[in-house]
């Protein structure tokens, strides 16, 4: 049995972009969603088996805030990765996400990040075009996801997990 490594990741995005739906699609057995509106975070866990080790992801789904100041930075501390989520049908959510990425970089510059453009099942209604994405794709890897169909959800979480496990940790696993 391979060794287990635990990692904390955060989901950040505006109201209604589908963060909680993505988490619900990805994991089972989460804490009640009522904590999202009370404490401001919903936490769930998911074990991922990588070739060298098992990674237990603790997923902190932060309450949607349009303003970065509204985010509790204390909830982000200690995170090994951040998933930004925007709604493909609302271009303003991408603009807000870009602001979030910039501000997060000021505090945590070396954390692996991904951008999930959600609601890929409604692509015919997307406001976000390739032109919108040119700038952001140069700074962060982008996944088109659908919490409804599950499209790319598993892949996105697997990708951020791979990015979080350092080469040293992998080497140590292989050695052990």
């Amino acid at each position: 049995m391979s060794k287990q490594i635990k990692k904390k990741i955060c989901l950040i995005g505006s109201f209604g972009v589908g963060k909680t739906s993505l988490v619900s699609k990805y994991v089972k057995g989460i804490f009640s969603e009522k904590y999202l509106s009370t404490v401001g975070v919903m936490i769930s866990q998911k074990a991922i088996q990588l070739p060298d080790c098992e990674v237990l992801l603790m997923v902190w789904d932060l309450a949607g805030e349009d303003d970065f100041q509204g985010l509790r930075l204390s909830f982000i501390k200690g995170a090994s990765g951040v998933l930004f989520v925007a709604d493909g049908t609302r271009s303003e959510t991408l603009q807000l996400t870009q602001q979030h990425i910039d501000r997060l970089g000021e505090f945590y510059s070396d954390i692996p990040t991904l951008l999930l453009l959600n609601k890929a099942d409604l692509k015919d209604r997307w406001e976000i075009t390739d032109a919108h994405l040119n700038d952001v794709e140069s700074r962060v890897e982008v996944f088109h996801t659908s919490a409804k169909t599950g499209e790319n959800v598993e892949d996105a979480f697997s990708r951020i997990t791979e990015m979080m496990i350092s080469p040293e940790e992998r080497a140590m696993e292989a050695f052990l």
Partner: protein
Amino acid sequence: MSATDLKQPAAALPRRLPDARSTTTFVSTPVESISLPQAAPPDGGRKVGKASDRQLGHALKPAIEQVVLDTLRENPKVVIDIVYPVLGRVIRKSITSALQALVASIESQAADVFSFKRLKWRWQALTSDRSYAEIVLANSVICSVDEVLLIHRETGLLLVHASRDPEHARDADLVSSMLTAIEDFARDSFDLDADDSLSSFSMAGQTVLIRTSPMMLIAAAVAGNPTSKVNDMLDEVMEQLHSDYHDDLGNFSGDVEPFISILPVLEACLTTETGQTQHEQTN
């Protein structure tokens, strides 16, 4: 006599002190008992001033006490208004604690009313000069540490978990993260410093005691009223682990293997406190 007078060099004091004695009729301690140096040392004035302050306070004490007592007799409502909010909280807390202990005790007694343990206690009562009620009270459970979690403070990730009930192990990772979030939430909400932390919270006879260091957090779920022994035990464990695992905690990046050796320490914390154990401690 002013404070400035009292702090004058000792050489000047003998002239003034007799005057003070003569004009202050309620002085109960003779001023002659003050030992004054013959030659003033560099700080002699300060020493004499302190001694005189004490004498003055001692002299004024009976009069001040009398004034306070007279005020209380004439208008007790003033004092009641001041003390009531404090007393109310203390009394409520005391009653709640007593009721929690009583409920825990009754539950424990009801659970094993016909057990071998009860028969043994009855036998002890028959063969000793202690009553059955006394023996039951001595053996009643005051509190029981049911679960202990060691959590990495920055990430909220669970490092080690010990529990009487293996079923609890399934949710321990989630509970750890949520506890950390609640602790952060409380600190942010009340604008507290990073060093401040939630120390405990209680619900329905269950108390979660929390101990924090800059790098870790210990949470212990306790049924009943946590005794001072349990609190002291957690403090000691926290100090020991902080010292022994300082480097591992600082380098933590998700691998919990270096902390597995802590498990026996946490398991040793799963203690039960009874009236008997408390009695033994006091003796």
